């Protein structure tokens, strides 16, 4: 049994310690907001926070999570998260929406560290998150919008 704290709730998980965090979240803990896209850390759809830092849950074995607190899209809260989700809704960023949990988790990570990112900062933080629908223009605008809200 491995211990995992997800969105502030402690869980005991019965799984192979090599299992990626992604599949424990989705299949055992019912946190399906975190998405599977590629399984090789190329697309960012599975992005969650470990102690507030964005990580690719498809490449994070549960044995390596340790004491770190896991936050998924279902559990984000606070000023930055509200600003980001609010900007996403105001600008109607989403299309199919499948990648957007990961995009939002990356954006929250960016704005937490850097409340006033430039376009280059945004590309640096977001280039690992693929959106096949091509919503990048609105993602960029929404991050600037969220930064304005936070200022």
């Amino acid at each position, binding site marked *: 049994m491995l211990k995992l704290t997800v969105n502030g709730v402690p869980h005991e998980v019965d799984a192979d310690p090599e299992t990626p965090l992604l599949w424990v979240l989705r299949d055992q803990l019912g946190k399906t907001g975190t998405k599977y*896209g590629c399984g090789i850390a190329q697309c960012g759809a599975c992005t969650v926070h470990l102690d507030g830092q964005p990580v690719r849950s498809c490449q994070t074995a549960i044995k390596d999570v340790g004491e770190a607190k896991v936050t998924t899209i279902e559990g984000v809260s606070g000023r930055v998260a509200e600003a980001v989700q609010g900007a996403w809704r105001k600008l109607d960023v989403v299309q199919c929406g499948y990648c957007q949990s990961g995009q939002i988790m990356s954006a929250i990570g960016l704005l937490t560290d850097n409340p006033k990112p430039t376009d280059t900062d945004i590309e640096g933080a977001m280039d690992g998150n693929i*959106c096949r629908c*091509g919503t990048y223009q609105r993602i960029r605008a929404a991050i600037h919008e969220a930064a304005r809200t936070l200022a």
Partner: protein
Amino acid sequence: MLTLGRSKAGARTPRVSRRSFLGGAAAATGAIVIGFRLDLKNPARAAGGPDLSTVKAMPNAFVRIAADDTVTVIIKHLDMGQGNTTGLAAILADELDADWAQVRTEFAPADAALYNNLLMGPVQGTGGSTAIANSWFQLRKAGAAAREMLVAAASYQWKVPVSEITVERGVLRHAASKNEARFGALAASAATLPVPQEPRLKDPSEWRLIGTKVARLDSAAKTDGSAIYSLDIRRPGQVTAMVAHPPRFGGTVGRVDDKAARAIPGVLDVVTIPSGVAVIAKDTWTARKGRDALVVVWDDSAAEARSSDAILAEYRETAKRPGLVASERGDPAAGIKGAAKVLEAEFIFPYLAHAPMEPLNATIERAADGSYDVFAGCQLQTIEQAVVAAILGVTTDKVRLHTQWAGGSFGRRATPTADYLAEAAAIVKATRGRAPVHLVWTREDDMTGGYYRPTVLHKLRAGLDAKGAITGWQHMVVGKSIMIGSPFEAMIVKNGIDGTTVEGASDTPYALPAYRFEVHNAREGVPVLWWRSVGHTHTAQAMEVFIDELAHAAGVDPLAYRLSLLASAPRLSGVLKLAAEKANWAAAKPDKGRALGIAAHESFGSYVAMVADVAVETGKVRVNRIVAAVDVGIAVTPDVIRAQVEGAVGFALSSVLRNRVTLKEGVVQERNFDTYEPTRMSEMPVVEVHIMPSQAAPTGIGEPGVPTLAPAISNAIFAATGQRLRSLPLDLTSLRGV
């Protein structure tokens, strides 16, 4: 669904007797034949198409007003991101005079009698950018009829004439008596009234939602993790299946050694099915480990074992022979023979994978009475239902489809063989429905699973006279037909010619004095399918780049040259002029490797022009900006239209710059996003979208933003460097900076 006034829980779909158009012969996947006229080419064009304005008013099929005052619009289409739920709901809600805040949506069940796509005959399905176009009158009438029923109910209750009752944002009022009621309070009594068959539709001046920026109805659920896609379906007792597929198309299972797979804790079963070997496990990761442990010897005796290069070489040989004539006029050979200048060009296009972010998956559950529930991103419901029913040996009414939000599709989920649903059904059959089966494809399964945009060869030849006028145009297209062998063959294929192979070329709007478009249907064993904008993905590149070449050879500005050939195509000319004006085309001059390029194309009854602003360095292209102008008739939800064009640019850019699916001795080489890399944010140009004001019936915009991107970029590269890159993806290695 006579459900005005009932709660969601109480709403049931009535059993509607189905037309027997599918016959009884749907014995196996792909064995379905639909004998019905399909008109996807131009949904707005009245000639030859169905008259959509005569559709019956069916408020009970399309709207449910609950006592809690919510208005739920029933969506008969799949929303794979194109935002049609918002647009379809806006059409109905406007006629109903609902408040946008009270509007919800729900995907319709599979029911071809109630929910067929009016442009697909008796088939419920989403494709060809038809969702808004086919639903326009249907949903207006449904909304208007429901409104009249609510007004009639208020009239009875308040004992006042209907003519004195007003409706505004979900509230009915009678000013003189100061009576007022919200929809929810009147819905139950309205539901008992007869449905008006010819409700009055609003004049465009009365629209409050149509043509305005309405908030997307799916934004909230898609930004907090609560939106459910089919990969998120969790049924009680469900097991997860992953399938080992043959590495070559047409391969079959030879010998299976499943000892190691079965030894993995959590692996529950291993079954051989027609499409491969399925490992069934307690969860996804265990299923994957089980599949990795399988040892399968494949039988490749009937498989496609050629490489893409060999297939293309065969196309080039084929192109030398006369093909089937798709369209012709005059004597182009004679025109070219006497020309002052002759231009020739070859364009090659690779196989492309759709690669939606959500890999294909489905869940099928057997109910106690022997019927089945299917949860998936259903896109061709009528066919999918029939395929699943045939495999499970039940009638179609025993298969209930629950359409979920789809994490992209780009055409892939609308597969006439319903391949992945057939696979899920085969596993349910092999395991006798003991547990709900959640079939998961990995990214690698999705990428290597076939049903690609066909690989296509275009060969063109044209002559110009001394003044630069076109004297003849010869055009050969070689590619595998999407429709031949599919249930849609009877509808679409005429005299051996699949319209989707030549659409956008053989019906060119350019005034060519003499032309001949020929086709060869290639026959390789790679399954092919429509990929966002179908034939236009390649015909627009061939036509719009070659026209650009002719313009330059004629010494005429490419915009002026196009306009001179489009006198009888006012809507296409209109978007060309609008895009050029907004991009400041007239004043632009190439400067140190940076230049503008232009292209225009009609697809699915919508008109799009794009001006690309690109910067070229050796081996590299940077697309700075795309200025797009679109004419989709009445713009129902303008912000969704803009989003679709922005997205089309982001989606298609990687296919212009790098994406291709290649076969090496029949084996697909690109297996994941590392070797088939979609566009990333740092590559995304600024996209400006201008919408042409129009009173014409609305057409679609899911696909039409794609075709013009590649030629606009290609033409800009030529303007910047004098180098003509024709084939896709662009051969950037050959590109030299200025």
